């Protein structure tokens, strides 16, 4: 893996949207700072009210949490509000080469907004994230298999598998009727899948906590710059976040940083290197 702290990252400006029940702002900001990016955390209401809120930011992060309580359905109320008040600006941000990362509730939100899968211009929801097959919230670390052939800029430097905490109640991906799943898979727009101990994609609980078909844990758009996933890379920020860190310490294998940072670093590096 490439080094984590990226020198040119100081030129990278990231916008982290907060408020309305979102709750991962502190770790997301700290993780991006650790990599070296400049981070602004702003309340969604202020970002909506400020027509220039996205200007100058190459990365917009939709963080985890319970936007509006996830009432009705996860991300639904937030996605609607974005569609009515910020949708055009977000599309322009992506069209102008900007990156968007959605984590957990952020993934649910940009999927329901229609920013993903992003096969055609505009905001068009063609997939959704629904209740886990085993109803209810579930918190456990998962293993993800990474598709090295995906255009996703966030995941391209990751090792073949990575472990991250997963915690959600609505992470099962469903598709519109028709051949969409095949299209997404053929174009390698599934950068990460839940994997079993051998590293193979799985639909079996608990390795796959939500029953997502093909173990799909995240999606990107064809440009690779818009990416969303259910597990939480920002919550594997310190080596001590890993469930086996004490064993790793005693064995002398404890990494210097939490490996989830590498996923965020992929996005930052893509910006810094262009």
């Amino acid at each position: 893996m490439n080094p984590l702290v990226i020198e040119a990252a100081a030129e990278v400006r990231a916008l982290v949207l907060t408020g309305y029940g979102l709750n991962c702002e502190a770790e997301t900001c700290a993780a991006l700072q650790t990599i070296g990016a400049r981070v602004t955390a702003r309340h969604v209401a202020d970002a909506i009210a400020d027509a220039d809120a996205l200007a100058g930011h190459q990365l917009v992060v939709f963080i985890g949490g319970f936007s509006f309580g996830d009432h009705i359905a996860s991300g639904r109320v937030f996605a609607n509000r974005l569609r009515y008040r910020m949708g055009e600006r977000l599309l322009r941000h992506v069209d102008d080469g900007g990156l968007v990362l959605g984590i957990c509730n952020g993934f649910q939100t940009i999927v329901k907004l229609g920013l993903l899968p992003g096969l055609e211009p505009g905001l068009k929801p063609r997939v959704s994230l629904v209740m886990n097959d085993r109803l209810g919230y579930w918190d456990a670390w998962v293993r993800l298999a990474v598709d090295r052939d995906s255009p996703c800029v966030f995941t391209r430097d990751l090792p073949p598998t990575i472990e991250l905490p997963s915690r959600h109640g609505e992470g099962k991906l469903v598709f519109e009727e028709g051949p969409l799943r095949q299209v997404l898979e053929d174009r390698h727009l599934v950068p990460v899948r839940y994997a079993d101990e051998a590293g193979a994609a799985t639909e079996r609980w608990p390795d796959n906590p939500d029953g997502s078909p093909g173990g799909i844990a995240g999606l990107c758009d064809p440009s690779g710059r818009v990416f969303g996933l259910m597990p939480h890379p920002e919550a594997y920020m310190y080596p001590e976040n890993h469930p086996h860190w004490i064993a790793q310490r005693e064995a002398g294998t404890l990494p210097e940083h939490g490996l989830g940072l590498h996923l965020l670093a992929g996005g930052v590096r893509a910006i810094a290197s262009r």
Partner: protein
Amino acid sequence: MRKLRFSQPKARLTAEWSCAKQGPVAQRPAEHPRETVPELCTYRLEIAVRPDLSDALATATGAQLAGLRPTGLRTRKVYLLDLDIGPAEAERVLAALTDPVAEVGAVGALADDFGAPAGAAGDPWLLTIGFRPGVTDSVGTSVKRAAEDCLGRPLRGHVYTATTYVFWGLEAAQAERAARELHNPLIERATLERSPRPHAFAVPRAGGAHDAVVATVALRAADDATLMRISTQGMLALSLTEMRAIQRHFAGLGRDPTDAELECLAQTWSEHCKHKIFAAPIEYTDPAGRTRTIERGLFRTYIRGATEAVAAARATADGEAPFLVSVFHDNAGVVRFSDADHLVYKVETHNSPSALDPYGGAMTGIVGVNRDSLGTGLGADLLTNVWGYCFGEPDFNGQLPPGLMHPRKIREGVHRGVIDGGNQSGIPYSRGWELFDARYAGKPLVYCGTVAVMPVTSAGRPTANKVVRAGDVVVMLGGRIGKDGIHGATFSSVELDESSPVQAVQIGDPITQKMVADFLAEARALGLYSGLTDNGAGGLSSSIGEMAQFTGGADIDLALAPLKYPGLMPWEVLISEAQERMTLAVPKDRLEALLELARRREVEATPLGEFTSGGRLRATWAGKPVLDLELEFLHEGTPRVPLRARWSPPARPESAAAAVAAVLGEPRLAAAPGSIGQDLLDMLSRPNMASNEHLARRYDHEVKGLSVVKPWVGARQDVPSTATVMRARHLRPEGVVLAEGVHPHYGDLDADAMARACVDEAVRRALCAGARIDRLAALDNFCWPDPVQSEKTPDGEHKLAQLVRCCEGLRAACEAFGVPLISGKDSMKNDAHLGGVKISIPPTLLVSVIGQMPDVRRALDLAPIAADDLVFVLGPTGRHLGGSELARQRGLTLPGVPTTDLAAAAARYAAFAAARDAGLIRSAHVAGRGGLAVALAHMTLAGELGVEAAVTEGLLRQVPEDMPLTPAEFLFSESTGRIVLTCKPAAAAELTARLGPHGLQALGQVAAPGQDGGGWLRVRRGEQVLIDVTAAALRERFRPAAVHGPPAPLPARAQEVRR
């Protein structure tokens, strides 16, 4: 007497529903003519999962209704829009709410048999479950918000939500059973219809157009019987002595109190708020028959006494800044942590509401205790939650008294409530435990706690201090006021019986509170307020009454308070415990900025009046007097009534020697080698010992990204950790260590021993994980059966004596370990009187310890690290099987409750902590409930390595000289003060030199995994095998779900399944 009419008409409890194709109701029934609600129309929206996709809620519901086998089951979300919108707008709202990929919706109703699964035949039953009028419906609030976003304008009215379950292939009686199983009639309404259903349904509008009346209560003329009738019928929970004191006070004023004044006094003087039992002088006859008087009461003598003694000893011991920042007087305790932050900690109980509505009651518990930490000083940032529950036996199959829910149902509801409340608040959990005993069937104990981090300064001020000044504005923040939670404080101060008030139950709205918490963090940093406290028990009467003490008074107008629905009396507005509310003191020159920020953050903030210095709490309704009380009388007027305590324990016949020998004796081993292993396996599957991971993983463990030693540890992350560790702030190394001790079964033998054991275990756990020994603080939570002698409680004197002994033990242990008590809570009426049966909980003390680490990277857990490491036990094992898990498992009544040699333990722990900090120890765990056998089992599961232990004669020997222990006694004794640890072979000599004098003894060795690649545990005495089990076998009993398939899904309503 004044009469004011609310502007809205008499609310209706019924309205027509729209039909699928007809749009909104065209013509309203005559009883609510259009002109009174000109613009509100009612629409029913129904949304279902796309028929070709699986319906997870239906699957889980089917599992919950085991035994009923419908041929088909699907669910629908139902939204009743009662809004000022037209039919085309309703269609647009439907489109905004429906998932275009995964759902199908209709204005009106979907066809009854929509989505019928293959194999479903015949006309379905449609069961619709929604809230009763007035019950908090936070999803409804969000739907209204979504409708406003969609239509681009603010809307009037409400949205009500429900879930429809469509069953195919059920008989009428079965459908009715499903309805009973799926709803709690206290808060929900169920409508069961056979297809084709009539399209007429009720909108659960709440409130009415009652006159806003302030009544006067004729107290002066009342005789004693009348006084008591007023107290009982009004749910005031005031004693005759207290009623007389109020009577005397108003006689002196020459008038009678208003209803609001009497209610305000009842809330403020309630046991819940005033802790009268802990304040009362007690004449105490101890076990030796000596009688003395505890003049200053239990709290001052033992609780604050312990803390003052510890603080005094500490002040002389180190020259650093005081460890205690704020204790006892605020909503939570505050201690020094780092140069930048203090730590805040509070643990609460929410027992009575959880008995009636486990989901709502427990959720209110977690969001309520979050508000406690949020409202400490000038506010704090919430870090992590803890929970612990005591329930009746989950597999109880006898006859429950009428009015009690089955413990299993209570357990499920409590978990769901705290899961939803905590997860949606964005706060991970750290500690979680459950205990089961038949005596908790009457009232479950629901402990919830919150750790918060408080910046040492904010906006240039010390954050720990409130600085309210006269003239500051009283601002109510957050949720609106309804009838929910009225009489919560007084309700929890009496036993549970058939007349318990249903409105005492509340449902939290965690997302509203999360927005309040985010708002407060911003406003605090900007210095926009000078003080705050939460609205918990007693509502505004308590929060404003308490804050008024800073300035010496407050003046408020209750008519300004925003209401959920019309029709509340002024006294109800004053004491409602509707959730998610904080009361702020705001300097006048900051008010506009505060209100502006609140508007931008969509948090409701309402000025109600101002703090004054006149020594009076005054409330008006639109200018007309409602309440006028002297603060002095309100807070200090409670008569202190001396109580009597006498140690007179009931007879406790011990088991016959032969029965004991059959379990603990030597001959058994010869007859059945390895039979101790069988006892261990059986023990691990008992409710008190078995894993509850299938429930615990429904709670967030990881949000905030600060976890270090998680609630579940080990190779497979399925062993409960000894203590948890987390960072307190990002990019800093300092850590918070949490642990607890709870041993009600020792209290059955001796409450003093229980208290010592609780403090000891909590301290020992925290030290195992790496806590600094000189930065520990503790919280005490007492849950007791009524300890006041009366006709209903003939053994009250003994129960109070148990409380005295518990306090003595608590103080002794805190002083010995140098651990101050920084906050606490007592809940003193945990009895249920139902259908002529009285169920009282066993006296239960919970001690929660909060520790600190300078660097989390040095933390330890319980998992053995590597083969060849050595296993030691630190601390002697005695014959302590009284109140033990083994005694309960084998149905024995045994003597020998673990007493704790506090001085020896304190010295042992200091030596242990020093050896640990010197890097000599690789893993550490406590021997607690279930003794060494269970500790070794946990280590085996966590390490997935072999553990080979040898029980030597030295380990069995007793000092002072007594009969040596049998191996069974040694392995299952619950002697306190013991740590099982591992070290590298090379460290053994130095470790022995350091800890040998404190009772370090070799126990065995870590070994390579077994042939199955997993861990194993073998315990021998010489050649005799005592235990020989694999980790797989242990796991099968400890965590049957891992072997026998998935855990049963938690039943849940659609609106509770989040993210």
